[in-house]
């Protein structure tokens, strides 16, 4: 069954405390080549049936309305996962 992948990230201008904590851990491990870490979310939505443009449009709307909150997050991508043969 096809899967649609939605990726959501905290807005760039907002503090991402989770990412900051991980960046701090990396620095403590001596990994000083990494200056920043930001953590977002990935949704995998399994579809019953086939994916067409109308369904993709519906998922894009869901991504904006439910999967993310536009006050604090951006939807960065909505893609169809390639099916394994």
């Amino acid at each position, binding site marked *: 069954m096809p899967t649609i992948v939605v990726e959501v990230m905290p807005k760039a201008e907002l503090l991402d405390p989770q990412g900051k904590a991980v960046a701090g851990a990396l620095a403590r491990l001596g990994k000083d080549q990494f200056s920043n870490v930001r953590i977002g979310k990935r949704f995998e939505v399994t579809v019953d049936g086939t994916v067409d443009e109308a369904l993709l449009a519906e998922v894009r709307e869901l991504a904006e309305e*439910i999967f993310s909150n536009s006050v604090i997050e951006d939807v960065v991508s909505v893609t169809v996962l390639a099916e394994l043969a």
Partner: protein
Amino acid sequence: MRIGVITFPGSLDDRDAQRAVRVSGATPVALWHGDHDLQGVDAVILPGGFSYGDYLRAGAIASHAPIMAEVIDAANRGVPVLGICNGFQMLAEARLVPGAHTRNAHQQFIRRDQKMRVENATTAWTNAFTAGDEIIIPMKNADGRFVADAETVARIEGEGQVTFRYLDVNPNGSLNDIAGVSNERGNVVALMPHPEHAIEPGFGPDTEDAMSSGTDGLRFFESAIATLVSL
């Protein structure tokens, strides 16, 4: 005077809110998230807790619960609605009040008796206060950092929609020390601290006078009752 308190899966302080309503002199009505029915209540409280385990975002799934259709309709008609903590997060997710919440800036869950200033004493839930009153209300949350874009913050500051501001300590990194906000009309008020935990001497927050003596929360509910009496 009947004030409804909605229970969601994961609500924690619904019974406390019902008790606060009763102690303040109104009749609490238990409402259920899965119903499309406010049972004709005069005001509605969305209580604190961790609805749906705070999955997705705190308050996000609850903001799409069946009863929220009736809450949004009632709020738009002018019915007093109070969101406490998780209830604030739900009202923000439902776009009934401005802003949103992220994890506390320091990443810690916080529990403290919090001093706040009442910035607007004209709302449905604050008219028993005087603007500038300093009150102490317990707070306890992990996702309490109020954020909004700069334009929204400037607008709500200008329009008097910042209802409460943290004093002494900003406990979670909220923008402009904002602890609570209202909608434009002032019938929908939402805050992170818990007024229902500050209604009885001996069981409230510590104050300068004595341990557990704080009852500043009572005036929230008395304000709503006064609002309803004046309608």
